[in-house]
């Protein structure tokens, strides 16, 4: 063995390898819910200013403002238009988090306060529908209801203990504004503020519903993950561990151990193809490579195609994978020893040609419903392609050509 091997042996720890082992996690922990929730807020937040524009615009038209007050409220509505692209691009207060949340609530408090200042004296809270622009802050309560705004120990559970008093405070704030505007509080003021509070409550409850959706979405993700892990765990147990045990038992008989090893290689290869074909875009080179590997010990691959970076949509990947598997399997089963595989891309079509040196078979096999080749051809035709048999020039073996469109039509998906 050379110097490098002598310098560092397997037993010596390599300081550069002191990375903590990968820890997988399949628990219903808060972080998954929080990530999902934050993502959801990021996608929804731009709708907040849209709603607030509608509220301000409606308020400017229907509420009893002074004449310049009306103009200011309309100006504010117009100013909110600028917030929409900002929020859409991820610069909204809830997307940013932290102190920006406080600014957002301060903005709501100030706008509601300004509406009182701009209202004609003795009119604020004197209309049973609600105080002017009362639902301006409803979006803030909607987002707050499901956004993880509390510090970690208080998150998820018991948050209502903090949120309900805050909502109550806002009711008190409306009452304060009524008192400032009217000089006293009437029964009508109390009722109007209660109705106004009702709008905020509706926003808050909608937020709670969205929060439940986020939790459900996170749990669904987890369920899918758990299912995938369970399948993989089963695969490791039933195919890998049990075959390794069998190989160990058969070690005294190398021929049998070799056979088991081949079995293990095939099982792993098939599983890899299965995972590969689960993608929406299948890398064709990887698919061909896996299929060629499976049969490389059985058939001599005298020609294989070069495909570079080409990928295909999943239905085409499934068809090509199945074709390669079936045709190579048939070739090996019927005594072929060598195979040529060609794959060409032209005019939006993939053309796969597999030629073997086996005994060949009549073209009628493709019309026999009991044969796998018939089913393969039907699938190819369903996708807009075909499977045909070409005559061999030297009269031995078979040449099968599969054609398929590069892009699948919606109806064929």
């Amino acid at each position, binding site marked *: *063995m050379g110097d490098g*091997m002598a310098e*560092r042996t*397997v037993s010596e720890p390599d300081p*550069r390898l002191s990375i903590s082992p990968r820890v997988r996690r399949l628990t219903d922990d808060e972080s998954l819910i929080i990530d999902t929730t934050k993502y959801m807020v990021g996608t929804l937040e731009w709708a907040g200013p849209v709603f607030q524009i509608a509220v301000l615009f409606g308020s400017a038209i229907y509420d009893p403002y002074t004449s310049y007050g009306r103009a200011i409220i309309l100006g504010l509505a117009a100013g909110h238009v600028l917030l929409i692209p900002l929020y859409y691009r991820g610069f909204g207060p809830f997307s940013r988090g932290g102190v920006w949340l406080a600014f957002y609530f301060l903005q709501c408090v100030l706008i509601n306060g300004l509406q009182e200042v701009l209202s004609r004296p003795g009119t604020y809270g004197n209309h049973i529908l609600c105080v002017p622009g009362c639902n301006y802050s409803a979006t803030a309560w909607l987002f707050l209801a499901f956004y993880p705004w509390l510090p970690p120990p208080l998150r998820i559970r018991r948050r209502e203990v903090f949120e309900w008093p805050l909502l109550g405070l806002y009711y008190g704030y409306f009452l304060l504004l009524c008192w400032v505007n009217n000089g006293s509080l009437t029964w009508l003021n109390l009722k109007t503020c209660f109705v106004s509070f009702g709008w905020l409550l509706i926003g808050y409850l909608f937020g709670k519903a969205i929060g439940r959706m986020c939790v459900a979405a996170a749990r669904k993700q987890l369920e899918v993950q758990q299912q995938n892990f369970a399948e993989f765990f089963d695969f490791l147990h039933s195919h890998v561990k049990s075959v390794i045990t069998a190989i160990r038992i058969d070690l005294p008989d190398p021929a049998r151990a*070799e056979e088991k*090893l081949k079995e293990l290689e095939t099982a792993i290869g098939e599983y890899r193809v299965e995972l590969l074909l689960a993608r929406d*875009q299948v890398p*064709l*080179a990887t698919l061909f490579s896996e299929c060629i590997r499976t049969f490389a010990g059985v058939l001599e691959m005298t020609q294989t195609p070069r495909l570079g970076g080409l990928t295909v949509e999943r239905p085409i990947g499934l068809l090509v994978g199945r074709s390669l598997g079936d045709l190579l399997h048939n070739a090996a089963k019927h005594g072929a020893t060598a195979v040529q595989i060609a794959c060409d891309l032209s005019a939006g079509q993939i053309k796969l040609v597999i030629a073997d040196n086996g005994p060949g078979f009549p073209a009628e096999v493709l019309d026999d419903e009991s044969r796998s080749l018939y089913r393969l051809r039907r699938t190819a035709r369903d996708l807009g392609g075909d499977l045909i048999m070409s005559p061999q020039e030297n009269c031995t073996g078979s040449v099968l050509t599969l054609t398929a469109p590069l892009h699948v039509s919606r109806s064929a998906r």
Partner: protein
Amino acid sequence: MSSSGLSILLVEDSDLLAGSTSRELEREYGHDVTWLRDPTLMTAKLSEQRFDVAIVDVLYEHLNREFDARRLAGQVKIRGEQLLITGLTAIHILGQQLPAIGTVVWTIGEANRRLHLLYAYENLETRNYCSKSPGTGDFGTLEYAARIAPTQQQYVDPVLNPYLPVTRARRATDILLKDECKRAIWRAMAVGAAGRTDIARIARYSDRTVGNRMPEMYQDLLEFDPGLPPSRAPQIEVARYAASNWQFFLDEAVRSMYP
């Protein structure tokens, strides 16, 4: 180097595989094997020892994991610091220091190594490829590839042949990495930026430039991979491609050639 054996440099991260491969090449074929776990120690080794051939793995798990952890934590900068070291770095160093040495790319061949294999073939002109798992169970193919590599002959394992480029196509780097701005955008997306503002900040171009380049980059991608479905959201498709091939777009050897 012995009378009939070669002096082989094996750059492979798996102790198990490197151990048995070295043993086989030495005992069965009489070669002299020096093993390095990754290309970071290669320059020093090349200055003190002469080799006939190098057998090089593509991705090194420990380097990959360490870099990915930094990438996911948002600690990778696309300028000024070293990016991911892969087998391309090893081939690049070999090409610079020992142009006459034979090189064999030794890999299992996976979807995330596709672009590396294309780059090795098209840009670094490596012509010998051997699969770690050839399916035949025959170890002799690696020995054969190693033996012919210094003689400028070619060997491509049928299992790896599909990864190599179609001869009539333009080089992947000519399509995807020709433009400096596009390279910065690819790298920004490969480190995890998805929104236009984030991409612009990391790539150091304006939002508008990023927005204007995105449809062009998607067209480039369609030229490189015509199998991608038509999309109305080019940025999403480009970001997806960058994310699934981040090891290539953040490859140090690629960046040194395409800064």
